[in-house]
């Protein structure tokens, strides 16, 4: 909580002003019963009209002051809380973006979304409420008691008696409520997770007619959420009536002893009335208590969840480049990466996993060469190429690029020279042009078009009614799988990378298109890593890596492997035996 609240420090002035404004308002209100007692004792009882006029005028004037203070406090409190939320969200998102991919993968994206939106909003509301309303409650309670003591010490002390009870009660409630709402939040997360899954897998759920099953699952979690919410809210709501009863008892006592004092001449009617009036004000303030406490305990839970992200230690990634001057200004060599890649005895396993994904990988490629990586599903191909842009770090061995250990090259410099096309196509909302230019923000139209031509997608785009300005829905719904693949290849090419990584990115392309694409890539003279299933695309490679269960089963050129590797020959046979060809199109 403390760490999160430190974000408010920047808006200290606004916060304090808001609180001061509230204090002005409050003191006006607290004066009222006192002034009433003056009107009763000095005005009505002695029939002095001028006193009534005087104090009535003071009451009127003070309420105007209170109004002005109240309105301006709205601005200050709102400014402080909204700016606080803005900063917090901003820093939180920066933090998330600064994670290495491995650390990022530890969080579920649905939970990160809730933290960035719901949790921040919760805190923001809490601060706004505190600055204008919630802090009122203790102030009204203590202020009223103080005023009561001023009016009549003896009767005021009756109110003081209630204080220890109040404090103990509130603290106890805070404690229980916080843990309760933590539980509610976890159940809510579960519900949200199911929703997220259902949205992502909606097609599959439909085709498998599992709607009923999913609804049942959702009902189960929603029901659990409902029960937990009811349970914790009930506890909350049960406490306030008791607190009210407590203060009400104090009023009865005030009246009882007040009457005795009046009879003895120790107190006036006005004084007793004032003290009773202060008690009523305490009650008024306390009635909002449960609502406030609920918000506080939720905010504490939210703060905890935000802090969890903020406190996640992550040393591997270098600090985010200043948006002003992204790459290049680092002290290291400014000369561009040429693209010579060497793996030295590289081993890898995912953090927290017991499975060895890669083991003892050794190879070397010169700049501009083409490497084809071949292997069965799960043999570690994708993991291997993800080590090159340092999405993950090898757990063993070293990777050198242009003779330099990749760990000594900054992420930004390294990645600036890599074009990566992942296996699963991920396009962003926006136009086709935006999506290609995504790889190189200040790419010219000509560059975009060139990249599209190289990726064999230009003609397709050109035929669309809006051409490059065609909007893509989420994940590019209106394009076919192959078209999406080519688009994400164009996105990588527009960067003019010195290392190009294609993670099985041509699987949905027909052979003719693929061949044209590979031909085009040959002219680009970048080091190309090509994960593929097709012998047709390995034949032109300078180096073929054949992976089997995380180990390098064989490596070399096509002709070498045909002679040395049985596995490679088998794959070749299966693809070039009678009738094993791919059939697609000519264009």
């Amino acid at each position: 909580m403390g760490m999160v609240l430190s974000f408010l420090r920047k808006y200290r002035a606004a916060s304090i002003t808001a609180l001061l404004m509230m204090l002005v308002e409050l003191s006006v209100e607290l004066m009222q019963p006192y002034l009433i007692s003056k009107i009763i004792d000095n005005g009505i009882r002695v029939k002095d009209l001028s006193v009534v006029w005087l104090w009535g005028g003071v009451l009127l004037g003070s309420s105007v002051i209170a109004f002005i203070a109240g309105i301006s406090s709205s601005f200050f409190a709102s400014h402080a809380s909204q700016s606080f939320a803005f900063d917090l969200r901003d820093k939180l998102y920066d933090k998330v973006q600064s994670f290495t991919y491995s650390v990022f993968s530890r969080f579920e994206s649905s939970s990160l979304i809730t933290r960035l939106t719901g949790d921040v909003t919760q805190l923001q509301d809490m601060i706004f409420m505190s600055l204008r309303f919630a802090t009122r409650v203790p102030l009204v309670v203590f202020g009223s008691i103080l005023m009561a003591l001023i009016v009549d010490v003896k009767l005021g002390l009756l109110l003081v008696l209630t204080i220890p009870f109040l404090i103990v009660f509130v603290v106890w409630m805070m404690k229980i409520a916080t843990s309760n709402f933590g539980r509610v939040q976890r159940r809510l997360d579960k519900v949200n997770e199911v929703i997220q899954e259902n949205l992502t897998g909606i097609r599959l759920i439909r085709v498998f007619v599992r709607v009923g099953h999913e609804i049942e699952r959702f009902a189960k979690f929603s029901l659990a959420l409902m029960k937990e919410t009811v349970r914790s809210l009930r506890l909350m709501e049960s406490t306030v009536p008791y607190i009210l009863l407590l203060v009400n008892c104090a009023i009865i006592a005030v009246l009882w002893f007040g009457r005795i004092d009046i009879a003895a001449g120790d107190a006036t009617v006005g004084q007793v009335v004032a003290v009773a009036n202060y008690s009523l004000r305490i009650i008024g303030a306390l009635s909002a208590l449960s609502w406030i406490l609920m918000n506080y305990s939720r905010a504490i839970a939210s703060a905890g969840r935000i802090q969890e992200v903020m406190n996640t230690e992550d040393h591997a990634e270098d600090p985010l480049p200043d948006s002003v001057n992204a790459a290049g200004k680092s002290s290291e060599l400014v000369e561009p990466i040429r693209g010579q890649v060497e793996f030295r005895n590289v081993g890898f396993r995912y953090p927290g996993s017991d499975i060895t994904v890669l083991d003892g990988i050794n190879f070397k490629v010169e700049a501009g060469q083409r490497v084809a990586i071949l292997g069965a599903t799960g043999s570690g191909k994708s993991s291997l190429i993800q080590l090159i842009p340092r999405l993950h770090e090898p757990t063993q061995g070293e990777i050198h690029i242009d003779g330099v250990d990749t760990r000594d090259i900054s992420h930004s410099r390294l990645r600036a020279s890599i074009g990566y096309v992942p296996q699963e196509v991920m396009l962003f909302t926006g136009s086709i042009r935006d999506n290609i230019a995504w790889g190189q923000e200040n790419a010219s139209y000509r560059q975009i078009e060139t990249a599209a031509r190289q990726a064999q997608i230009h003609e397709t785009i050109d035929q669309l009614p809006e051409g490059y300005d065609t909007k893509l829905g989420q994940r590019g719904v209106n394009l076919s799988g192959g078209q999406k693949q080519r688009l994400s290849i164009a996105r990588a090419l527009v960067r003019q990378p010195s290392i190009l990584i294609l993670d099985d990115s041509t699987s949905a392309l027909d052979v003719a298109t693929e061949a044209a694409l590979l031909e085009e890539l040959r002219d680009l003279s970048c080091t190309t890593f090509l994960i593929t299933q097709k012998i047709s695309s390995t034949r032109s490679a300078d180096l073929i890596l054949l992976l089997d269960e995380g180990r390098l089963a064989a490596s070399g050129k096509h002709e070498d492997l045909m002679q040395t590797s049985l596995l490679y020959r088998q794959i070749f046979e299966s693809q070039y035996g009678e009738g094993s060809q791919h059939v697609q199109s000519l264009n």
Partner: protein
Amino acid sequence: MFKALTEPFQHPFPEIELRKGGGGRKPKAKAKNVSGTVGRIWTYLARRKAKLILVLFMVVLSSGLALLGPYMIGKAVDDYLQSSRAHFGLFLAGLGLVYVLYSVTSWLQNIWMIEISQETVYRMRMDLFTHLHQLPIPFFGKRQQGEIMSRLTNDMENVSSTLNSSAIQIFSSILTLVGTLGVMLYLSPLLTLLTFLVVPLMILGMRWITRRTGPLYKQRQNNLGELNGYIEETLSGQRIIKAFSQEPRVIRGFKERNEAIRRSGFWAQTISGFIPKLMNSLNNLSFAIVAGVGGILAIRGAVTIGIIIVFVEYARQFTRPLNDLANQWNTLLSAIAGAERVFEVMDEEVEVKDEEVEVKDEGASVKLDHVEGAVSFSHVAFSYEENGDTLSDISFEAKPGEMIALVGPTGAGKTTLIQLLSRFYDPSDGLITVDGRDITTIQRQSLRSHMAFVLQDSFLFQGTIRENIRFGRLDATDEEVEEASKLANAHAFIMRLGGGYDRVLETGGNGISQGQKQLLAIARAILASPSILVLDEATSSIDTITEIKIQEGLQRLMQGRTSFVIAHRLNTIRQADKILVLKDGRLIEQGPHEKLLAAGGFYSKLYHGQLRNEEM
């Protein structure tokens, strides 16, 4: 310091709102919207009528008791403090009883209301979720996932927290208002009139405020939805962002959206924050009026001191419920905006509901118990958009058990054809039949339950591998699950993973490769044991050796089932009983491999061109 004090007043007012506020928009239209939304929430609440009536009863009681308290204090001042009447103890005991009863009744009403409101939220959530599953697939294509997500979560939560806290307050406010008014009139009509002098001011102020806050809150909620969508997208594309070092850029994009929220949020909060302050001030004003004028009247002997005290407290009580409400106005407004967005989704037209068809045309919407698997398309046409055909004039027949291969260039309409068969879309022209029956007369659910799919993008849920496979048929035994995995050649790799079948997969199946996901998807389809099988480039990311093994399994599976296969590999295609060659959305050739080859058309060009390519 000076800057810190002026800054809060320098936030630019959101542009859209200015237009709305100044454009002479009729406030009635907006109010109708709000009341419509509230009305719909009410229909949910009304389902627990009996309990709601009990709650109402308790609210009536507690409001009455809340009125009685101050009245008795006033009485105490007039009758006991200023004179020495007997039985003061008894009187105070009565007051004590009133207080106890007050606590008990308000406790009960709260506890019961929580139950009702949470049940309401639960029902709304379920309705929304169920409705979502009835929406046509294009709905999801058109919207950002995070945006829909936001409606289901943020907006729903908003409704939930507001129902808990505000629902009762609305009832009791109204009651207390009426009650207070009654008693005040009874005690002194003149003072009542004076107290109510502030009401016109209040109404004016409130109107000024709500006219602005309504659209502002909606705007804020929209901005929040947008931000949500952005976060969702950038988080799921995180790998790409990292690999392309585009962090500064997405951070910039985030800042823009974040700024938009700050802007609309600031004004929504500030202006709605005027409400409690306005109430308070008017409260103070009426306090001053009652005290001043009351004092003058008391000196003239027109009222007693007790009455002034009661009035002062009542004036407070009369505004307090409104004050409480006003304090929660923020939440209330954003909850109504939230509910509106929730209902917006619920009002989306559903994929023609099967039941409705049944009612409309008896016997037309059939549930199929058994499907042989005869499929025919006659002159089928379809387009996603109004203009331009994606498919046109498709006619072919598939006998039960036949294997149909779909061949053609990327984007020729192969996937669309399959989507028509499974009724994700209905054809704009022509007729599709299964076992001779027009499929538009068959319930979607029933139709799909006889089909199994292995799609291009396989999707895995969070859960164990076993659960993910069992998704194909929920009542399958562990043995059947394992059997299916063996047929799909997934068994071996599953056993190699730590935990085997009980290994928990992350959402989307992170941690296992794409090919492995496909194997699980195939196992899932095998387990479903369908009459019609669709393989949509299912084996495109599986390596050749594994594929050969899978082919065996698929072969066994395809035995006796009609299957539609979109694939690249000739050896798959050659086995097909019928090959459909698609080009630019038209079916240009159909027939078995040899016949098509002999005909020397597009297919044979493909085939030979293919070989030429391979030889290069």
